[in-house]
């Protein structure tokens, strides 16, 4: 996509195409000869896996949409029909429902990877920011999708989340009403959410295109976080990384299948097997696991507007990381302090996730979980807003190797 092309059209048809629509050239340069650092480790396989996940969601989603009815009176029944009567409907739905969880699992690993190796630092700021945008679109898509089966958790999850907007002063309630198309979540809401749930994955696909385009300008970062110095530091993408990514993709599909075939409801919520009832809220409203940390942040703040602002800021802050991190060194391998703060941040996200999954008044070993969530929230923001800029200034990084090849060859 950038840099001098090494494509050399051979056959007549390739030459003909190359002067009209150089698609073979594009594919050749991005997926075949693309020079890739030779030290990429396991954590670099998730980009490919994410592309696979998007494709799976689109294919299974289009099939589900052939049987699904976006009508408050019919939606729940149509999903039951998919499960019981449509040929292989159960399989397609379970792949789609668990696929969403697999997608998020992969995206979180992918994001933490970027955080650890400093992949957001110059010249890769835009790759990171486009990534944050993809993540936002994914959460919106998954939220709309979760509403579609029109179970109790669909309905009340939609109610709580659309009510976030009512926290905005003056225009808030108008925005909620505008989103609902009514004075509460109802048929109009379901219908439009279906339309958006169908649309957004294709928007994601387009933005993924930008993500990869931006990646192919500076090329991959790598676990050492140092620049490629010479052609000896790289290998062509094919066959080296196609084989490696393919191998891990197979392992990922096996992992995915274990859920689809042996624990299809593992990520599900029993309340969603009950049809939506606008008069009764289930005893516990819990979002899907991938949103739990943010839910804990929302609940840790006892003020409606501030809670919603904190929730939005928790995602928005990610877009500013390229400028919050002041360190000159990219990879945490060479950052003795940041390394620990990073792992503590990972644990913090897990703790917040756990708090979000528990009832509001839950107590663990005598400590109210709200209190734990408050500390968790403080560390979440403190990590980005205080620690990242300060540690970057005061930490003494370990010496960097001269090149990617040097530590391997031991020169």
């Amino acid at each position, binding site marked *: 996509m950038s840099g001098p092309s090494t494509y050399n059209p051979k056959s007549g048809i390739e030459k003909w195409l190359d002067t009209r629509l150089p698609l073979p050239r594009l594919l050749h340069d991005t997926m075949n000869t693309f020079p890739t650092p030779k030290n990429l480790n396991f954590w670099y396989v998730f980009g490919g896996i994410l592309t696979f996940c998007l494709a799976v969601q689109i294919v299974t989603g289009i099939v589900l949409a052939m049987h699904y009815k976006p009508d408050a009176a019919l939606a729940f029944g149509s999903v039951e029909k998919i499960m019981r009567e449509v040929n292989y409907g159960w399989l397609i739905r379970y792949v789609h429902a668990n696929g969403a969880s697999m997608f998020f699992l992969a995206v979180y690993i992918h994001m933490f990877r970027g955080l650890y190796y400093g992949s957001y630092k110059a010249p890769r700021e835009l790759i990171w920011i486009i990534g944050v945008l993809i993540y936002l679109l994914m959460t919106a898509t998954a939220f709309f999708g979760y509403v579609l089966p029109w179970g109790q958790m669909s309905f009340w999850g939609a*109610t709580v989340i659309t009510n976030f907007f009512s926290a905005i002063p003056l225009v808030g309630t108008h925005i909620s009403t505008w989103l609902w198309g009514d004075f509460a979540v109802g048929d109009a809401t379901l219908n439009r959410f279906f339309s958006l749930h169908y649309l957004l994955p294709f928007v994601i696909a387009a933005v993924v295109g930008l993500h990869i385009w931006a990646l192919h300008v500076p090329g991959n970062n790598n676990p050492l976080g140092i620049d490629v110095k010479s052609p000896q530091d790289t290998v062509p993408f094919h066959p080296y990384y196609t084989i490696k990514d393919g191998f891990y993709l197979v392992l990922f599909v096996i992992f995915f299948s274990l859920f689809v075939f042996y624990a299809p409801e593992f990520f599900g919520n029993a309340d969603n097997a009950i049809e939506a009832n606008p008069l009764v809220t289930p005893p516990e409203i819990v979002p899907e696991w991938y949103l739990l940390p943010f839910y804990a942040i929302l609940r840790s703040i006892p*003020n409606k507007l501030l809670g919603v602002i904190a929730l939005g800021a928790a995602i928005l802050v990610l877009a500013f990381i390229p400028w919050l991190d002041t360190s000159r060194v990219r990879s945490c391998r060479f950052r003795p302090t940041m390394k620990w703060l990073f792992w503590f941040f990972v644990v913090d996200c897990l703790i917040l996730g756990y708090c979000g999954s528990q009832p*509001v008044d839950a107590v663990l070993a005598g400590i109210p979980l709200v209190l734990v969530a408050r500390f968790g929230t403080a560390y979440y923001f403190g990590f980005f807003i205080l620690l990242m800029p300060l540690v970057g200034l005061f930490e003494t990084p370990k010496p960097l190797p001269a090149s990617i090849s040097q530590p391997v060859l031991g020169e």
Partner: protein
Amino acid sequence: MTAATADDATRRDFLYVASGAMGGVAVAAVAWPLIDQMNPSTAALALSSVEVPLDSIQVGQGITVKWRGQPLFVRRRTPEEIAKARAVDVASLPDPLANNDSLPENAPATDANRTTKPEWLVLKGVCTHLGCTPTISTPTDVQGEYGGWLCHCHGSQYDTAGRIRKGPAPRNLEVPPYAFLSDTRIKVG
């Protein structure tokens, strides 16, 4: 010659600005229908009302009925519950306004302003935090510290006049417009 060029430039500037402005108007004119179509349709706006018979509700009991797609609470309060609600100092409440659709917006949240007849409390069953339906207290199963309602979603607690007392909800439960048709029947909406 130079004068002519300068003259040309200003005419061009004018044309740029004018067509830019017209283009902006055109975009806004096209965008508005696309935005407004998402607002409630005339069918959704057509106000519906519901009549609720009260004779089957015992003292200390509450019922939930559906009104405009949302829950509506009708509660017949015990004398103790009324006394408790009246004893509260309005200035000490998180939301000191009545939030009663039949009263002016700045009416204070006294118990009298929350009800038409002291015994009957009529409220929209929509938590003012994020819209869950709070759970009602009964004499045998008290919800929260204030004997009114507890919202399980994020822990908002309402008192026996449906006023917010604790938790993230910012406002008192809304009192919808309603009227007594007779001693045993109300019309809401």
